[in-house]
């Protein structure tokens, strides 16, 4: 049985949050320098990565073994559902720069 280690969990998930936060800042700065609207979508995607990792770290450290029927709002079942919702929006943000409106000829 894998023993639960708060330090390892926090290092993995917290690391993703910190790196995502750094990438968010870099993307916003690049957008401000170049004026490209597509970089805004990338920056927002990284921001959501950061938020998702922060919520995951909080939920895992708060009650890592809570069952899916626990009223804790970020329990096991809810956390996976919330993570999937975040993934949907992140993927949409990363795909948005590829959507082009057809120009009238």
């Amino acid at each position, binding site marked *: 049985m894998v023993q639960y280690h708060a330090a390892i969990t926090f290092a993995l998930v917290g690391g993703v949050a910190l790196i995502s936060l750094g990438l968010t800042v870099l993307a916003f700065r690049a957008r401000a320098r170049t004026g490209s609207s597509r970089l805004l979508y990338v920056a927002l995607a990284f921001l959501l990565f950061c938020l998702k990792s922060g919520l995951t770290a909080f939920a895992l450290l708060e009650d890592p073994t809570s069952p899916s029927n*626990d009223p804790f709002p970020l329990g096991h079942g809810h956390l996976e559902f919330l993570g999937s919702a975040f993934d949907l929006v992140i993927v949409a943000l990363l795909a948005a720069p590829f959507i082009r409106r057809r120009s009238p000829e």
Partner: protein
Amino acid sequence: MTGRPSPRLRAAAVLGLLGLALACGAPSRADPVDQPHAVLSPLLGPGEAFTATFALPGQSAYHCHLHPGMTGLLDVQAAPSDSAPRTHVVHILDPRNGSAGRLGFQDAQSGTSTTTLAAGDSVVWINDGNLTHDVAFQARAQAPTDPGWFEPLVAGLALAAVAVIVASRLRKPR
């Protein structure tokens, strides 16, 4: 950014979101008592216990996630009208507690892994071993404790965000 999405695109996005939000919310509006509901106890260390109450008749097999060979059966029968709720004890055994090599669940009354109880009774699993165990089962008797608003709200917000993202790329330039 300039331009606004067309009225058709906005209307389609709103209607689509409403429909999906209602669809996501439909299961939570069903009768919760008749829904099979997965129950997983917390990890039980030596000496720890977990209690569950069963309100409806039916049979439910349970097992330990950490030791798949450990299984038991709950046989919930209709309660007599004049009976008071009882608590049934199930001992969780493993070889390290001197139980002659047994690894499993043992009902304190029947001595087997089957517990016969009346609707409304409770079962308490007590870890008498030296290993960590848990108890997982499908409960028809337990109503879900999840708030019904969580999944529809999250799904609706996510889909609304996707609609806004797509609309922002498709709007007409001024």
